């Protein structure tokens, strides 16, 4: 199905002929996404449908005009920023893709009031670099610095290793400029009354929940074209120091920064420590990061990442090293914590507090990683989040299961079932899931409001170029979903659950219906009907069909 000529012309009149295309080579390049292999019946990494056209608007006025044309002609649309994940793609026939690449400016960075104003294609790494020059830092989503700041705060999820200090992505959202699904431009909060970008609330009801919905609306509910975003203190150098040789970059931060890998005798002890850390209000970053590579491989993997002469090809030989084996054992049931002090006294206090917490919970610092070299490596990994696409190193893909968000105690019961599922798929005959060790739980351990709750996801690695591998991955996702439902754990927005908006409507209704609070999804559906009466929003909006 092609766009009618007059519709294409209407779009071209808005953006100009250089910035619209329906050429197959262009269109097809927007179909390749992480997890597209799960949505494609042939299990290839390409979405089942193509956009009819791709447009590159440059201004909010152009976006507004495009949305109005979509409403006039009943054309669905999906905006995309950085675009990492299948939810960014057009998944409906007859839809257009709005690539927001030309909207890439940082419009303001207010040092005194600690906020910035950004457009959709400003990536976290760019904002962070600019903010650090002013003694500030910004929230970076767990997927790292190559993600759009707007996408990660206004449109999708928002968990972060620096959530401990900077809270959840949407908590950092200030005023918003939003093109509604019908093409109105709404400016919320202080911006809406002409007072700048510093406040997200008012006048009238907060619009943040409407715009974001549950875990973000994944580009299916209008277009956010500018936001004010909170910035946070950065007690480090204005020019972030890089050391080491590519690809093994590291840093050389001063002594008011410390980083530790702390190990515990059990998952419960991990949970116990987190409550104490929340109460003590220490930690700039707290994340179960390295375990992502699998509890049997994490020691070897950080060794490889830290040495520019090594690569994944050297994995088996590195694993055979006795020191690495010892390190691997010591890293099991562990997480990473970064402390950033505003003074020598402050960092000393935080260190003492951490030591007390560890003593009270049976934890200990992994001695082999408590060296200057490994501290700087860990600091760099977690502060910059510049290598989070190593998630794809093993096989080219991965996905998480389990992954509820909640109090640390509530996560503990999900760990063993997650390990069992991974173990099953890793060890079965003809297993096509990477054998990384049964426990590959990763998660951000400080979340809403900084501290207060956590989430952990069990990761597995399938190969998108291997059909059997993709099928086994899907089986694992559904199996985990059944376990979650049977135990009445809340479905996680971070696990296979974020594929749910793209599955058939009956499956979505079943999934959201299992949530302990299904009414929230009904309301969301009603909001959607009000704001998007012509249904131009593409797939990605999470809602429950209201029962008649």
């Amino acid at each position, binding site marked *: 199905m092609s766009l009618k000529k007059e519709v294409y012309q209407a779009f071209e009149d808005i953006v100009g002929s250089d*910035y619209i295309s329906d*050429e*197959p*080579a*262009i269109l*097809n*390049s927007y*179909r*390749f*996404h992480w997890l597209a292999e799960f949505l494609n019946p042939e299990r290839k*990494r*390409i979405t089942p449908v193509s956009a009819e056209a791709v447009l*590159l608007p440059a201004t909010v006025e152009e976006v507004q005009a495009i949305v109005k044309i979509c409403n006039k002609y009943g054309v669905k649309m999906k905006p995309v920023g*950085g*675009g*990492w994940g299948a939810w960014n793609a057009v998944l409906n026939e007859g839809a257009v893709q709005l*690539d927001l690449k*030309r909207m890439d400016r940082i419009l303001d960075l207010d040092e005194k009031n600690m906020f910035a104003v950004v457009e959709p294609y400003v*990536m976290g*790494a*760019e*904002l*962070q*670099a*600019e903010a650090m020059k002013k003694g500030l830092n910004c929230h970076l989503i767990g997927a790292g*610095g*190559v993600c759009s700041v707007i996408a990660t705060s206004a449109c999708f999820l928002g968990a972060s290793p620096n959530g401990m200090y900077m809270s959840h992505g949407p908590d950092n959202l200030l005023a918003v400029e939003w093109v509604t699904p019908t093409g109105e431009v709404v400016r919320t909060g202080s911006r809406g009354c002409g007072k700048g970008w510093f406040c997200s609330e008012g006048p009238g009801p907060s619009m943040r929940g409407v715009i974001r919905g549950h875990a973000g609306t994944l580009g299916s509910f209008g277009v956010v074209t500018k936001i004010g975003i909170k910035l946070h203190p950065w007690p480090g150098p204005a020019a972030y120091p*890089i050391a080491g*040789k*590519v*690809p093994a970059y590291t840093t050389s931060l001063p002594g008011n920064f410390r980083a530790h890998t702390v190990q515990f005798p059990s998952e419960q002890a991990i949970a116990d420590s987190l409550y104490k850390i929340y109460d003590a209000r220490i930690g700039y970053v707290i994340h179960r990061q390295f375990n992502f590579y699998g509890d049997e*491989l994490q020691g070897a993997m950080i060794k490889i990442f830290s040495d*520019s002469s090594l*690569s994944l*090809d050297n*994995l*088996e*030989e590195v694993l055979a090293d006795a020191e690495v084996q010892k390190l691997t054992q010591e890293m099991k049931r562990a997480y990473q914590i970064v402390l950033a002090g505003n003074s020598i006294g402050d960092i000393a206090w935080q260190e003492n507090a951490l030591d007390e917490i560890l003593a009270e919970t049976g934890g200990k610092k992994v001695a082999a990683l408590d060296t200057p070299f490994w501290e700087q490596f860990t600091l760099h990994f977690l502060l*910059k*989040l*510049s*290598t*989070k*696409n*190593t998630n*794809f*190193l*093993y*096989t*080219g893909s991965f996905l998480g299961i389990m992954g509820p968000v909640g109090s640390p105690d509530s996560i503990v019961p999900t760990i063993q079932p997650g390990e069992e599922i991974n173990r099953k798929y890793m060890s079965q005959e003809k*297993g*096509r899931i*990477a*054998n*990384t060790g049964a426990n590959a739980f990763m998660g951000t351990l400080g979340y809403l409001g900084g501290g207060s709750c956590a989430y952990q996801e069990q990761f597995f*690695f399938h*190969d*998108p*170029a291997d059909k059997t*591998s993709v099928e086994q991955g899907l089986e694992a996702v559904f199996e985990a979903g059944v376990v979650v439902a049977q135990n009445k754990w809340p479905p996680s927005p971070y696990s296979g659950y974020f594929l749910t908006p793209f599955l058939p409507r009956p499956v979505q209704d079943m999934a959201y219906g299992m949530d302990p609070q299904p009414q929230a999804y009904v309301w969301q559906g009603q909001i959607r009907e009000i704001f998007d009466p012509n249904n131009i929003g593409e797939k990605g909006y999470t809602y429950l069909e209201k029962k008649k």
Partner: protein
Amino acid sequence: MALIDYRDDMQRCSRCSSCKFIPLAQIKSNRFSSGCPSIEWGKFHAYSASGRFNVAFSLLEGLIPYSDRLLDIVYQCPVCGSCDVSCKISTQLEPLDMALELRAKLVEDGQLLPQHMPLIDTLRKEDTLFTGKIKNNRGNWAEGLKVKDLTTEKGEVLFHAGCRYCFDEELWGVARASISLLKGAGVDVGILGKDESCCGGRAYEMGYQGEFIKFAESNIEAWKKAGVKTVVTGCSDGYYAFNYLYPAKSGKKPNVEVLHITQFMDRLIRAGRIKPVNSVPLKVTYHDPCHLGRMGEPYIPWTGKRAQIRNIINVFDPPKPKRRGTNGVYDEPRNVLKSIPDLSLVEMERIREYAWCCGSGGGVKESYPDLALWTARERIEEAKATGAEAIVTACPWCERNFRDAIAVTGDKLQVYDVVELLHKAVI
């Protein structure tokens, strides 16, 4: 490897978009965060390395036809390797090699970019891509230098000028200065003059692998006949061709040491054979040529195969040497600059393995001059932001493109080659 050999990797690209930026850890500003001239120019995702993975897969699967737009997508790219460095921070994919094989497939399938035709025609007839030039004039740049003719005499060191230095009269001074410095240092240097041929590197980058192999074989034979132990060139493209493409892609390893002129000069300065004594009071910034820097790593032979360990983790067995920009030629040109009295060197934001390209490479200068000039203008802006009075480079293609860009903008920024400044300091 042929394009089909990258098919599985095409699906393993996750579309993280790292290829569009310099390594994230190295980003110092919003203004100079991008690493890829192609995506910044073309804007649509297809113009990125990830996009070309997608285009290549779509072609192999028969999902898209050949088209003029497809050719633009493939060729509006200077194959500068920035995407390769950024991607390989975290993966084992090969965006650059895949892009080059995609070009080779287009040529093999007869999908030829019209702008390339005159270049290839001249290459076949006159041993150079420079249209309107003839081989007989190739040695004119060296007139009056009294440099050894290695077609009739033996020598230790062969200076390969390269097509740009041979046929761009405005840049002859750099090649002449190179010879002057080498001779002054007592180096037994000679040239092939009109019998010198193109390195073939640009032809390889444009997808004409067969042509490239002919030049590789011919040049290696010529060096053997001349009996030289060392081949030194002032052209970074030539350095890349001799140092890497010849052993890696032609199947023929030159039995000589290959050096870039800055490497040789650095050596001679350290040995005390070149003494920079004259003051050159200038504030400069150094532009790392892609083919000398991140693509200037030596070739390490490897024979092995793909393997899967631990069920499905994709590796190479035995471990395959990785070209990630780690061991490119970055320090020697800087060492030479730092040896010049009163010259001060300030660095741009994007340097070394994550330098922004000048825009000349991959056939872009000839085929898409607007893109080439735009890319150079971006680099000029970055150089100006340092407060430098001059941008210095180590490649005639970079120098030419910067000069052309400045001629359009009227900027006051001066453009030099490292050798030019060293020459001022010595003679």
